C-alpha cells in the first residue's frame, strides 16, 4: 500500500509549525530572574509545580504542532493507493457505448483499452461488463473466463443512445456488492463528454471498498455540428394545409462553420437548401413548411452537410402522422335531451360528416374492451353499471382512457363513482330560476377553455345556470365553479387517464349553455383534448422503450404495429452531439465531495468511493480534538 498526497503543495503550510515553536521557546525563555524576598513560603511546592508546568507546556506545544500538522495534512489530502490488481478481485468494465463514442477514433481507442483491461484480468479474478448507453446493461455476467469476455466484447459496438453514467455506475456498484472479494473495481472506458458526466450525482458515492477507475478515450476535437432538435406537429388533419417543421442546428465547434441544410420528406428532397454560417458555439433555427402528399405518415429528415467527426448526428428524423377520428363511445340509458347537443357536436352526419369523430354506441351492461374501441367514453346520468361494466371502465380510465360523466337528476351515488373519488353531496343545487346564475370562476388556462378567453372566442360568463348537482371529486382540478364554490366542470387524473365530470345534464331546464354558441366548441375541444391525452409518444430517442415493447435502436422510422397509418420516429440522443470533453480538472473539481480523485496515473484519472476524503475528514476531526485539548490544558491550573 502506498500513500500519496493529492495536493502536496499544501505541505508548505507545515512551516507554520514555527509559530507554536516560537511561542513555546518564548514561554521557556529564561529572562533575568526576579528577585523576591519571600520565596520561603512557596519554594517547597514549586518543584512539583514546575515539573507539571513544563509537562503542560510540552503537551500544549505538542498539541499545537499536531493540530497544525493535521490541518496541513488534511489540506494535502492523503490517500492510499493500492496495488492495481490482486488475486481476489472483482472487476466490472463499464463500457461507454453511447452515440458520442462513434466520434473520430474514440471507439478504436476504447478497443485498445478493452484489450488492456482483459489482459490485466488474472487468474482468480471475477469480471463482468456493463454497457453504458441509455441505461446500464450487464452484457457479460460474472463467472466467465477470459475467452468469454473477449468474445462478448468483440461483439459490442457503439450505439446511438445517450449516456446514463449514474445508472451504469449504480448497477455496477450493486453487482459488486454481491461479490465477496477483497477488491472491487469499476473501470469505466468513456469519452467523458461533459453533457453526460456533468449530470452524475456524486453526492451518492459508491459503496465503501469500491474503486472507480476511469479511462478517458476522447480526442479533443470539438468540431462537431449537429441537428439537435426538430419540432413538428404531432398530427395533420387536412392534406391541403401545410404544417411547419422547425429544426435547430447547433455548432459545437470552436470555429464558425458553413453548413448546407436540407430537408427530405418521404425520401424526396423537399426542394429547399439553406447555406448557413453558424458562429462558434452558436445555434440556428431553420423552418420548413411541409405539405403532406396523402393521408399517410409524413416521414422526413433534416440534414446538414458536410459530415464531421460524428456523422450520425448530421440528420434528424421527424414524423407527422395523419390524424384519425376521435372515437367517442356513448353509454346511455334512455333517450335524453342531451343527445341532441352531443350528437350535434360529435356525431358525423351522412356524407357531410366530419371525419374528426367516430360515434360508437356502447352497451351499458357489457361495453367490451373499451381501449380497443374508443378514445373517450361519455356517460349519461343515472346509468346503472353492472360489476363487469364498472371494472371495464376502471381499467379503461387507468390505462389512459378518458371518461366524461354527465351528472343529472337521477344520479345516485354508486360504488364505481366512489372508487373514482366522486361524492354527490346533495340532490340538486338550484340557482335563481328567473334569471339563472352565471359562472363565477373559469380556468381559462386549460386547453379546452383557452379559446374563450380570447376577444371573439365567446363569452362563457353569459351562461345561465338554473340548477346543478353539487359534487366533490377528490384531487380534481375544477375548470368552472359557481359563486358558492360548487364545481360545474372538473377534471381528475386517474392512472394515466382522465375523468371529466359535468355537474349538470345538457338540458334547458338546468342551463341555457347548450343553446349558446360556446357550448359546441367547448365540447369539441374538450373531447379532442381528452383523446389526445390518451395518445402515446411517437418521438423516441435511441435506447428508449417503444410502445410495442421493443427498444429503439437505430435512428429512423418504426411502423406502429397496431395502427397502420401511424409511425414512430427514433433519433440520436441530442446530448451525444456535444463532444466537449469532461476534462479531468473539471471533473475533479466536481468530485470534491464526497468522491475523491486518488490518482492520475497515465491518461486515466482514477477515483475511489472509498478512500476519497475519509482520512482528510479524520484529520480535520483530529485538528478540532487537538485544539480542544490544547484549550483545556493551556487554561488548566493544578489542584
Amino acid at each position, binding site marked *: 500500500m502506498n500513500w500519496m498526497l493529492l495536493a502536496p503543495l499544501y505541505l508548505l503550510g507545515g512551516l507554520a509549525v514555527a509559530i507554536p515553536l516560537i511561542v513555546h521557546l518564548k514561554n521557556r525563555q529564561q529572562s533575568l530572574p526576579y528577585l523576591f*524576598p519571600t*520565596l520561603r513560603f512557596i519554594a517547597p511546592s514549586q518543584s512539583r509545580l514546575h515539573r507539571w*508546568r513544563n509537562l503542560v507546556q510540552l503537551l500544549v506545544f505538542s498539541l499545537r504542532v499536531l493540530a497544525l500538522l493535521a490541518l496541513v495534512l488534511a489540506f494535502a489530502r492523503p490517500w492510499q493507493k493500492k496495488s492495481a490488481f490482486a488475486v481476489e478481485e472483482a472487476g466490472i468494465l463499464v463500457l461507454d457505448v453511447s452515440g458520442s463514442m462513434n466520434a473520430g477514433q474514440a471507439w478504436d481507442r476504447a478497443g485498445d483499452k478493452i484489450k488492456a483491461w482483459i489482459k490485466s484480468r488474472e487468474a482468480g479474478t471475477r469480471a463482468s461488463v456493463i454497457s453504458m448507453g441509455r441505461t446500464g446493461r450487464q452484457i457479460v455476467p460474472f463467472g466467465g473466463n477470459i475467452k468469454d469476455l473477449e468474445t462478448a466484447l468483440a461483439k459490442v459496438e457503439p450505439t446511438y443512445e445517450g449516456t446514463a453514467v449514474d445508472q451504469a455506475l449504480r448497477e455496477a456498484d450493486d453487482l459488486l456488492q454481491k461479490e465477496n472479494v477483497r477488491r472491487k473495481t469499476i473501470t469505466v472506458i468513456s469519452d467523458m463528454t461533459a453533457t453526460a458526466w456533468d449530470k452524475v450525482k456524486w453526492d451518492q458515492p459508491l459503496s465503501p471498498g469500491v474503486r472507480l477507475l476511469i479511462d478517458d478515450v476522447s480526442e479533443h476535437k470539438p468540431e462537431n455540428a449537429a441537428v439537435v432538435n426538430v419540432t413538428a406537429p404531432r398530427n395533420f388533419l387536412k392534406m391541403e394545409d401545410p404544417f411547419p417543421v422547425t429544426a435547430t442546428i447547433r455548432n459545437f465547434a470552436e470555429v464558425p462553420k458553413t453548413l448546407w441544410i436540407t430537408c427530405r420528406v418521404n425520401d424526396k428532397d423537399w426542394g429547399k437548401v439553406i447555406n448557413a454560417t453558424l458562429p462558434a458555439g452558436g445555434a440556428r433555427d431553420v423552418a420548413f413548411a411541409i405539405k403532406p402528399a396523402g393521408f399517410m405518415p409524413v416521414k422526413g429528415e433534416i440534414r446538414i452537410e458536410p459530415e464531421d467527426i460524428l456523422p450520425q448526428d448530421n440528420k434528424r428524423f421527424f414524423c407527422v402522422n395523419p390524424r384519425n377520428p376521435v372515437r367517442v363511445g356513448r353509454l346511455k340509458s334512455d333517450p335524453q335531451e342531451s343527445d341532441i347537443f352531443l350528437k350535434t357536436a360529435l356525431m358525423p352526419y351522412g356524407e357531410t360528416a366530419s371525419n374528426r369523430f367516430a360515434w360508437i354506441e356502447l352497451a351499458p351492461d357489457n361495453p367490451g374492451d373499451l381501449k380497443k374501441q374508443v378514445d373517450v367514453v361519455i356517460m349519461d346520468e343515472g346509468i346503472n353499471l353492472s360489476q363487469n361494466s364498472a371494472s371495464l371502465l376502471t381499467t379503461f380510465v387507468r390505462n389512459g382512457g378518458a371518461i366524461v360523466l354527465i351528472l343529472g337528476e337521477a344520479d345516485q351515488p354508486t360504488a364505481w363513482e366512489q372508487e373514482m373519488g366522486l361524492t354527490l353531496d346533495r340532490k340538486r343545487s338550484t340557482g335563481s330560476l328567473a334569471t339563472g346564475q352565471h359562472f363565477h370562476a373559469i380556468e381559462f388556462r386549460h386547453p379546452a377553455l383557452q379559446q374563450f378567453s380570447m376577444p371573439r372566442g365567446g363569452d362563457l360568463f353569459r351562461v345561465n345556470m338554473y340548477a346543478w348537482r353539487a359534487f366533490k371529486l377528490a384531487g380534481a382540478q375544477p375548470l368552472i365553479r359557481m359563486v358558492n364554490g360548487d364545481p360545474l366542470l372538473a377534471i381528475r387524473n386517474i392512472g394515466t387517464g382522465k375523468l371529466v365530470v359535468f355537474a349538470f345534464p345538457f338540458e334547458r331546464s338546468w342551463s341555457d349553455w347548450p343553446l349558446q354558441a360556446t357550448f359546441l366548441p367547448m365540447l369539441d375541444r374538450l373531447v379532442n383534448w381528452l383523446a389526445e391525452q390518451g395518445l402515446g409518444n411517437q418521438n423516441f430517442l435511441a435506447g428508449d422503450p417503444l410502445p410495442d415493447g421493443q427498444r429503439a435502436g437505430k435512428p429512423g422510422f418504426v411502423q406502429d404495429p397496431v395502427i397502420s397509418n401511424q409511425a414512430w420516429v427514433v433519433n440520436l440522443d441530442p446530448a451525444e452531439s456535444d463532444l466537449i470533453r469532461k476534462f479531468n480538472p473539471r471533473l475533479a473539481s466536481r468530485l470534491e465531495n464526497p468522491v475523491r480523485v486518488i490518482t492520475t496515473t497515465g491518461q486515466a484519472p482514477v477515483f475511489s468511493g472509498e478512500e476519497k476524503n475519509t482520512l482528510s475528514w479524520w484529520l480535520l476531526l483530529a485538528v478540532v480534538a487537538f485544539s480542544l485539548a490544547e484549550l483545556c490544558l493551556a487554561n488548566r*491550573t493544578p489542584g
Partner: protein
Amino acid sequence: MPQSIPWDPHLLARVETLEWRSRVLVNGFLQGLHRSPMRGFSSEFSQYRPYYPGDELKRLDWRAYGRLDRLYVREYEAETNLRCQILVDASGSMGYRSANTPFRKYDYAALLAAALIRLLQTQRDACGLTLMQTGVFEYLPPKLSKAHFTRCLAAFEALAPKGGSDLLATVNHLVNLFPHRGLVAIFSDAWEDPDRISSALERLLFDKHDICFFQIVDPRELDFKFSESRMFRDMETGLRVPVTPEWTRAKYLNAVAKHLDALKQKCLDIGVVYRVLTTTQPPFETFAAFMAERERRL
C-alpha cells in the same frame, strides 16, 4: 553602586512636633521626660519613708512629724531621659522594592528610624542604632549629640541591604552592650521563623525594655500579584525557583497570612507593640498615627 536613601527633611522636621513617652520605667542618665525606677527631684510625689540617719534634713516632712511624732522623709519620682536602641534589619530582603512603590523596605525602615532618632534627640533622649546583617553588627551606642544623628544617617547610607539576618543572634549580642532598661525599636521585614523572633523579643523583655516591633513589608509581598510565569530568585538565599503565579498565589497568600498571624499572636502574648507597615503608606502619617495610638494607650 549603592542606592542612596531618599531622606525626607520635611519628615524629620515634622517629627519634632511629636512627643515620645516610654511605657515603662527607664534608666536614664540625665533629667528627662520619662519615669525612672529611681527616686529623684521631680514634682511628682512618690512616697513617705522613715528617716534614716544620713538623709538630707531638708527632705523631712515636718507636718507628718507634727501629726505622727515620727520622722518621715518625702520622696519624689525621678524623671530621666530615655535610652533607646533602634535595630534595623539590613538583610538582602530589605532591599526589595516592587514596581510602583516609592521605597525599598530598607529605605522605609531607615526613614522611620531616622525620624524616631530625631524625635528622641529633640526630647534629649539618647538614641543608638544597630544594623543587622549576616556577618555585620553595626552598633552605634545611644548618644545625645547632633553629630550622632549624622553618624546614624551615614551608617544607613554606608550599609547596603544584602545577605541574611538573625534577630535572635543580634539581640543576644546587643543585650551585653545595652543592659539598662530602655526603648528598643525594631524595624525588620521579619520573614524569619516567628519562634526565633519571639525568643529575641522575650530576651529583650527580660531586661525590661520597652519594645516596639515594626514589620516593614512591600505590598507585593502581601498580595503576590504577578502575572507572568518566570524564574524567581530569593534575595537572601539566592534560591532560584520557577514560579507560575496563578498556580502559586493561593498557597503563598495562605502561608504569608499564617506567618503574620503567628507573629502577631506571639507579640500579643508577650506584650510587644507590633505593627505591620507597608512601604506604600506615607511615612510621617504612619508614624504620627502610631504615636497617637500609643499616646491613647498610655
